[in-house]
């Protein structure tokens, strides 16, 4: 296979990682909402933890984007 084509295919495959991170972020917010609706009184105190979980899940998706960018523009 042509090296250039392999790079672009790799960058496309890295987009799977972004989709996986979407599942992760959805899980974080979904589970938070589920818990928050059961006990609305405790929800406000947990917003910091919500965003920590969101940040951790999102970072992995952003790493997938970095991999794609490196494959297209750097490698």
């Amino acid at each position, binding site marked *: 296979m042509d090296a250039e084509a392999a790079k672009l295919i790799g960058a496309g495959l890295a987009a799977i990682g972004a989709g996986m991170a979407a599942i992760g972020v959805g899980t974080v917010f979904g589970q938070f909402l589920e818990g928050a609706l059961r006990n609305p009184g405790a929800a406000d*105190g947990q917003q*910091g933890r919500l*965003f*920590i979980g*969101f*940040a951790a899940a*999102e*970072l992995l998706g*952003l*790493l997938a*984007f*970095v991999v794609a*960018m490196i494959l297209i*523009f750097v490698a």
Partner: protein
Amino acid sequence: MASSGKIDPMHQFEVQTIAEGFTLGGQQIALTNSALWMLVTVVALWLFMLGGMKRAVVPGRWQMMVETFTGFIDDMLKQNIGKDGRKYLPYVFSLFMFILFANLLGLLPLGLIGIHPFTFTSHFTVTGVLAIMSFSIVLIVGFAKHGLKFFTLFVPHGTPLWLIWLIPVIEFVSFMVRPFSLGLRLFVAMTAGHVLLKVLAGFVINSANAGVGYGVGIGFPSFALMIGISALEVLVAGIQAYVFALLTSLYINDAEHLH
């Protein structure tokens, strides 16, 4: 045809020299568009704060707005660090507001009147330095306050004895990765959003050039999507500034109290 309408989503991130400066040690020191927009951000932030620091007993609208932000960061520090966190308020607040203003100014549609905003938070050099600043504060506070006991950070309470060879290694790696993940998150989130908007804008222009059918079929949905993504980007600008400040406060909490 295809080559004339080529989308170049990376062009917006190019650092361009506005005023030639001087050379220092073989390196050119110049006013770039990145530096210019940092100055614009600082001036905007300064004006924003100036309007709200009149200390009126009955606060007006502007003062309420500023106090909402300071109260927000103050609450966050109180929740995450405790009452020792008060002394970090100036740093974390400046960090939060600087990143927030930078992100939002980069989203302004000033390109309509010929001024192209430059989102300098989409550069790893900028976010990396911000992250290194936070990381240095953690190291300086940690070592000044606890001395060599700061290294017990790598051995959490209740580590089983037979895992004592493994846990510190993992903790050390996760500790050293912090400045990278902190800087990388902000820079990639900003870059990704702007690239996405630019690619969609390219769809609109190229489909409109290709004919009426393409323009209606592809151009309009793309434009509608752009409006939605723009709203999402405003949200992301706020969330990323918040996450940066939140993680900084968590890391400072580690330095203050170990764990």
